[in-house]
Every structure is written in C-alpha cells, then in structure tokens.
C-alpha cells in the first residue's frame, strides 16, 4: 500500500454566481489545482467528481465526462452522489485508488450551482436528500430536519440557542481573511439571536447560505511525487465512511450522528491515531447544531459536551483545537457537491502554512475533515498529516 500525497488544491470563490455553469466552476477549480500541483494533466488516470443536484439545477446528468472535458483531462470520469457528502466520497475513492496502486494520479473535486434556482427552488431541491415518502411528503425541509435534531439535543443534553449563536459568530470570524468565502464579515451573538426563525429553534444565522462554487485536488502516490519532484508535504493517512438509516425517524439516536461516529473510528484506526492527536478540524456545519454533533462524533467531546465548545473558546482560532478555520459551511459557503473536497483543500493549505488562518495553528501537523450527507445518513472522515 502506497502513501497518498496531496499535490495541489484549488477552489473557486464560494458565493452567489447564478449565471455560471457547473462546468465553468469546476474548470476554474481544476486549473487552480493543476497550477498548484505542477502535475501534467496527461498523467491523470481517474477523475472522481461530486455533484448533488445537477439534474434539478442545470438539467444535466452524466456529469463525469463533462467535467473531465472541462478540466482538460482524458481520463475516465465518474460522478459521486451522496447528497452533501458527494465529494467526500469522491475523495475516499481517490485515496483508495492511489493506495491500491490502481492509479498514480487522480483528480478529485466537486461543483454545485444552486443560486439560479432561488431560495424556494433550492429548498425544494435540497429536500430530495431526505426520504421522499416518509419525510419530504410531511413537509420536512433540510433546516427542519436539523431543527428536529437540535430540539432533540436540547431535550436530552441541554444547551441553548445562544450556544449555537457562538458557533456562527466563530465561523464568521474565521472567514474574514478567507478570500474564497461567501461571507467575509463578522456577526455578533445578538444579531444571530435576533435573526428570523427558519425552523425553530434554528434561525437564519444558524444556517449555511446557498452557494455556487467548485473545489479540486490532485492526489498522487508517494512514488509519483518522488519521481516527478512534486512538492506535496501533506498526506491523506486515514479514510472512513459511515452510513445510517435514510430517514431521521429510523435512527437509533436523534441527538447523535452514529454514521459520523463510525466514519471517525474507521479513519482514526486507518491512520493509527485518535482524537487527542487532532490539532485542527474542518467539519460539516451546514447548521450550527451540525458542528456540535460533529465535534462529538469525532470524539473531541463526550455526547452533550460539545454544545458549549465555541462559547468556551475551545474551538475558536485561539482555542486548544480550532474548528472550521476556513469559516466552515456557515460562512465560507456550502456548494453541496463541492464541500467535501473543499474541506480537504482548506485543510491542506492550513497544514502547509499558506492559508490566511495558518498562523492560528503554527505547529499543527494533523487535521481531520468531516463531511456529512443528508441528515447524516452518509459521512466521510479523512485524516491529513504533514510528512516530515
């Protein structure tokens, strides 16, 4: 089994770009990734590409070959769809291919165009990640689903809307210097608490925005990096994926995320590390409560203890273990199919030291990324480490 190096990473700006096609967004991210990697496009042996709602937003299926063409690679290309975890699962496949010697160079990434559908259209499109018969037909929305989890959490463990507001404030603050982020502006706890309700107990500032954007990364084998003198100081050393019942009502627990717990256990074991080794994390905060659930699933906190982490300053940039230094989905934005790979992109730069927030964690050499699909019926976790 060979080691997997991250040779190059790229993003588009995450934001409102309703006029831009998915193919154009992915092309831009891929150009940035190849420029960063210094790897020849002709060496790419596979493209794994994440996208969730292309049929609804762009009337476009079969996006694998479309995106290979956009990126200028002649490799076979496959689209991965796992709702908001789409490109997390694509990264996992890329890691497996390189490790197993199936490919020396893989292009991985994702893209999503959403704003052209408007808020109501996007709300309806995102709902297809839930169970159509047993959830969507009852009027459950995506914010509604996370609101159900937030209420269950408060009921079981305690916590308040103010605790959640601190998560939003932290992530907005982290996004300030991130030129790729949708919201480069600070908010206050009071503003968050005064915002209109979307689905009680969650308000507008508990929710990630609707985002257009793309991400890409070039993964190479250790041998390829050595032979081609590719500067790739960060490795993917662990990969894990967990699944669960599709509908929230079928889960063993409404206030925990067992799929993410399984993904984290597998990824940690794969890398030979545990939660105490993690210096920094990028987690799937599509809603503020989702960050809390992620912290607990990653075993940073016992169930019921993660809710106060941001308020106590433990996950802020000055805290013991900063979380979502990119701004997270909350402030950086959440172009659904691009998010999983974008977390790997941000973490690679944080660990390499060329992220605007790298100075918050100058000694960090191990980071994790946590990417959740649906109401956490799918989760991938990846461990990234700086090689000596």
């Amino acid at each position, binding site marked *: 089994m060979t080691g997997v190096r991250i040779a190059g990473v790229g993003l588009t700006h995450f934001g409102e770009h309703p006029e831009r096609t998915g193919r154009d967004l992915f092309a831009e991210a891929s150009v940035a990734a190849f420029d960063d990697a210094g790897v020849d496009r002709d060496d790419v042996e596979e493209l794994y590409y994440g996208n969730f709602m292309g049929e609804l937003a762009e009337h476009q299926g079969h996006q694998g070959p479309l995106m290979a063409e956009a990126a200028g690679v002649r490799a076979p290309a496959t689209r991965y769809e796992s709702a908001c975890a789409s490109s997390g699962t694509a990264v996992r496949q890329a890691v497996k291919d390189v490790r197993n010697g199936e490919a020396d160079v893989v292009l991985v990434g994702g893209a999503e165009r959403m704003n052209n559908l408007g*808020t*109501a*259209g996007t*709300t*309806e499109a995102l*709902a*297809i990640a839930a169970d*159509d*018969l*047993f*959830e*969507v*037909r*009852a*009027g*459950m*929305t995506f*914010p*509604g689903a996370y*609101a*159900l*989890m937030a*209420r*269950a959490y408060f*009921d079981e463990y305690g916590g308040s809307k103010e605790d959640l507001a601190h998560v939003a404030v932290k992530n907005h603050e982290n996004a300030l210097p991130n030129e790729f982020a949708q919201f480069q502006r600070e908010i206050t706890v009071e503003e968050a608490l005064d915002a*209109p*309700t*979307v*689905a*009680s*107990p*969650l308000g507008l500032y508990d929710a990630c925005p609707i985002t257009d954007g793309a991400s890409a990364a070039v993964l190479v084998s250790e041998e390829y990096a050595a032979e081609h003198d590719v500067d790739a100081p960060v490795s993917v050393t662990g990969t894990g994926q967990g699944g669960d*019942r599709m*509908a*929230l*009502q*079928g889960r063993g627990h*409404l206030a925990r995320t067992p799929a993410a717990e399984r993904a984290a256990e597998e990824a940690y074991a794969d890398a030979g590390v545990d939660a105490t080794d993690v210096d920094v994390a990028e987690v799937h905060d599509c809603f503020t409560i989702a960050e809390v659930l992620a912290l607990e699933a990653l075993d940073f906190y016992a169930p019921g203890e993660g809710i106060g982490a941001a308020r106590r300053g433990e996950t802020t940039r000055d805290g013991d273990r900063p979380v979502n230094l990119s701004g997270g989905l909350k402030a950086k934005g959440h172009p659904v199919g691009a998010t999983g790979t974008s977390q790997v992109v941000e973490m690679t730069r944080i660990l390499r030291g060329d992220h605007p927030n790298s100075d918050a964690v100058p000694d960090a050499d191990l980071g994790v990324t946590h990417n959740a699909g649906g109401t956490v019926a799918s989760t991938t976790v990846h461990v990234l480490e700086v090689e000596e």
Partner: protein
Amino acid sequence: MTDADYHDEGYDDWLAAIEDGDGFYLECENGHGSLPPRRVCPDCGATDLAEVPLPDAGEVATFTEIAVAPPSFEDETPYVTAVVDFGPVRLTGQVRNADGTELVGDDVDVGMTVAPAVGETQTTGERVLVFEPR
C-alpha cells in the same frame, strides 16, 4: 416534487390504512419495527415481516415549527413537523388540531401524546400524515 401523480404501492396503501383507522407497521420475528414498502428487516435482515397494528397514540420525540417552506408547502407556514415515537417505529408528520384550529410550535412539547391521522396539505391538496394532540 412532493406531488406524486402516480401510486406508490406500499406507502400509499399504508397511508390509506391510517386514514381508515387501521394503521399498522411491519414487524420481524425479532421484534424490529419498520415501514412499507419493505421486504427485508433493516435491522436484522429477516424476510418474514408481519403487519402489526400501529398504537393509537405516540409521544412527540422532537418537533420544529417551520417558517421557510418549499413551494409545495408555501401556503401552510408556519407549520409544525414532528417525529413521533410509537414504540417499535417512529413516524414524521405535521402536528395539527383535530378541530382545524391553528396550532403553532408553542402548543407542542416533547413527550406530548398525539394520535396519527391523515389530512391534506393546504397548498397542493396532497394527503399528509398528521398527528393530533390527544
């Protein structure tokens, strides 16, 4: 997208049974509950599933008052969606007063007892699972 103008065998029949007061769930020989259409127990893989009467009432496990809805529910906001625990199965539906009077999130609590029924959405007239406070 939520309007299905086709019949979903299993699901639509199950909803009709609730409407007729004959609600049921599926149970395997190991006592795991599930919902139709279902051929295999998702917990243990058993393939012998029997229809068992759904309890007359359940307890609200969690709920939310939804203010921002998709187009197919735009005329109902705000509305209350809940996950209700019926023992071996949980169900998701809208909490509504049986007499048709308005109900909001402040009227609902975790642990509240509700009974399953079938109503219509105000926006599209689609059948929807509802829970009526007892």
